């Protein structure tokens, strides 16, 4: 701090003498922070070694990492151009994003079917594929890759973006894609921003149409399917989209939400009466208090994971184990919180109700509940909020819902776009519910906040 005040020696002594507590600090006060920091640093260093951080990072598949991350917001078309009897034949996987025979702007057949032109973004970056030779154009410069039955060979003077890899030649076009030229085929990966066929899959009559066209068809067009209106056909096609599985994902998301909602609600309903037994000032029976509190501790301390796996073994995967897991842990946690709130109530209101001769149940109803109800509701809303999040993870261990769907999609390592879609849905839902519960809480608690 810039010291503009000047203190002479005598003044200095006087201040020191009159405020000894401020200037003479204990050992822990003076060095505590430093000591704790040192311990933390040593601990982190130990864990760094214990968890083999460096070897794990060195051995990571970093080349795959960029592909996975790009898959979140873009998609790949992966045709193979096979050389068969002097012809070039495109072959798509089952995951193909185009209809058979569709007119693809970046993959144009040449005359006679013996060649194909593949463009990567601009006319300067393209391939001219024939069974004998693949002409690679990078930034307008031409590099011929000659193909023999044994191998494809890199031309002399090729840039860094082309490399010989055993018998094949790899060409990299950056984000737009990459190509493997082999002796029998050319394997193309062409990448585009966005999610392919998000609304309608290739089987749908709406596929490949613009928004305006689809809207026009739904509102005024002739029925594509005589049995149902275009709007219901579109909705059906959307929900049953084979690649994106909107219907399935939305129903799984609903399951997760139901798990959190029902679990928290049941927990609240059970914890409410039990907390009255656990509260010392309400139930004047030490044994009952003690047993109820230990029951809460037991329910709370057994992990949600254990309950979830246990009920999954019993009831099979689905929302029921999720509900049961949340219900059991939350009964414990909410019961504890409720009992603490009850033990802190103002006794005067209870006495007032008692003094007019109310029955015991009415004493609780009118003397206690109005004091604690806002706290109870606000705590339950907090738990609901956090359970909406944890239900996703609980789902992944087997309780079903969007968590399991996420885990399945991640295990294929090819559905990262779907993972991104589900994450987006989860984020939206969590924000929505957070705001909803915040609004409800501030209504219940008034200006006091939490």
């Amino acid at each position, binding site marked *: *701090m810039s010291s503009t005040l000047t203190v002479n020696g005598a003044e200095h002594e006087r201040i020191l003498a009159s405020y000894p507590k401020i200037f003479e600090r204990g050992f822990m006060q003076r060095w505590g922070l430093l000591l704790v920091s040192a311990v933390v640093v040593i601990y*982190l260093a130990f*864990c760094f070694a214990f*968890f083999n951080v460096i070897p*794990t*990072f060195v*051995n*990571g*598949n970093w080349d795959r990492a960029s592909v*996975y*991350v790009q898959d979140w917001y873009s998609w790949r078309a992966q045709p193979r151009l096979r050389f068969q009897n002097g012809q070039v034949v495109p072959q798509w996987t089952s995951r193909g994003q185009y209809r058979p025979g569709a007119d693809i702007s970046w993959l144009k057949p040449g005359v006679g079917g013996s060649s194909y032109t593949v463009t990567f973004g601009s006319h300067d970056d393209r391939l001219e594929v024939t069974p004998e030779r693949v002409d690679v154009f990078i930034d307008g410069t031409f590099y011929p890759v000659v193909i023999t039955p044994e191998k494809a060979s890199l031309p002399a003077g090729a840039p860094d973006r082309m490399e010989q890899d055993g018998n094949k030649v790899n060409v990299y076009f950056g984000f737009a894609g990459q190509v493997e030229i082999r002796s029998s085929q050319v394997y193309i990966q062409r990448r585009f921003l966005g999610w392919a066929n998000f609304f309608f899959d290739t089987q749908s009559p709406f596929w490949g149409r613009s928004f305006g066209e689809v809207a026009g068809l739904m509102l005024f067009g002739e029925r594509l399917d005589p049995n149902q209106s275009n709007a219901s056909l579109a909705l059906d096609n959307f929900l049953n989209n084979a690649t994106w599985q909107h219907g399935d994902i939305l129903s799984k998301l*609903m399951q997760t939400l*139901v*798990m959190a*909602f*029902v679990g928290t609600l049941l927990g609240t309903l059970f914890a409410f009466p039990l907390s009255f037994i656990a509260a010392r000032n309400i139930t004047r029976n030490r044994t009952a208090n003690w047993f109820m509190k230990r029951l809460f*501790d037991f329910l709370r*301390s*057994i*992990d949600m*994971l*254990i309950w979830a*796996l*246990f009920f999954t*073994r*019993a*009831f*099979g*995967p*689905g*929302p*029921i184990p999720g*509900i049961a897991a949340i219900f059991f842990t939350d009964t414990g946690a909410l019961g504890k*919180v*409720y009992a603490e709130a009850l033990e*802190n*109530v103002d006794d005067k209101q209870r006495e007032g109700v008692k003094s007019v001769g109310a029955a015991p149940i*009415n004493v609780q*109803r*009118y003397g206690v509940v109005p004091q*604690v109800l806002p*706290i109870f509701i606000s705590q339950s809303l907090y738990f609901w909020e956090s359970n909406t*999040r*944890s239900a996703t*993870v609980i789902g*992944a*261990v*087997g309780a079903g819902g969007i*968590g399991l769907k*996420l*885990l399945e999609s*991640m*295990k294929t*390592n090819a559905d*990262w776009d779907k993972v991104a879609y589900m*994450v987006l849905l989860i*984020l939206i839902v969590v*924000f929505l519910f*957070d705001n909803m519960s915040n609004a409800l809480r501030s209504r219940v608690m008034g200006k*006091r906040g939490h």
Partner: protein
Amino acid sequence: MAHVAAPDRMSGLQESSRTILDHYQAQVQTRRIYTVVCIVVFLIVLGASLDFANDANSGKFFERLPYFFDFIKSFVPNGPLEIFRAMFDLPSPYADGSIKFDYTSDRVYITDSFYIPYFFYELAITVNIALVSTILGAGGAFLLCFFASSNLVGSRMVRWGVRRVMEIMRAFPEIVIAGLLAAILSIGPIAAIIAISFHTVGALGKLFFEVIENADMRPDEGLRASGASWLERVRFAILPQVLPNFVSYTLLRAEINVRASTIIGAVGGGGIGEAFSLSIGRDHAAKTYAIIILLLITVICVDQFSAWLRRRLIGKQSFEFGRGAA
């Protein structure tokens, strides 16, 4: 309670008092109707949700209920000693060559003769994952939180940005980060650490900046008057006030993270969670109960220790819920 007074007593009231009473009773009436409507709507939603959950489940609740008790009955180890043996990796008298009773081969040898029982080792991994990610997360939250609080940062843009970043970190499903990293770094504890730290930054960041916003600004004013820079004000005016609360929230988070790291472990992050999900899936009763007991003890110990530390740090008002009631 007796909201409705007897009519003969009401007749003694003055005209104005009677109007007030009528209004009051009308309000009570509407309130009751609202309450009943709310309860009915609630029950309908609850019923529909339960029905939906039952439909979506692979086993139906009432069909499976009898088997549920069968499952509990069949899931009994061969005596309490067996749990003890599974816990400490001692040879079992029931050993028949199957992994169900094979406890000894999992031992983690430190020296030739001294070993750590497998479940203790896995438990240590889980607890360490939780601790490391709490420390890393708290560090991240500490760096971010000052930029999110309205009493320290004037720029709305910065505040808004930092708060949104925290919200996304908080809401982002942990298993996705763990899964993505597991695909890159191979399955293991590091994916779990990064995933949990990421979430912790968001969760603690929010609590931290709320603490800062509730701080007393008079020390800050004093420092500002003497010409202190922003960093000095934060260090000498704000930090001493908020640090105990920060530590307390971090300890609370550590409790939560022990549970989180168990769960992430079950999804493939390693540690005791994975061991548990394997053993319950394979019907190894003794091992399962051994893990449950270990986890129970751990969670209770961590909770008690952190509660004790929190009480020491900030005294009686250590975030016990419901204090606001009095």
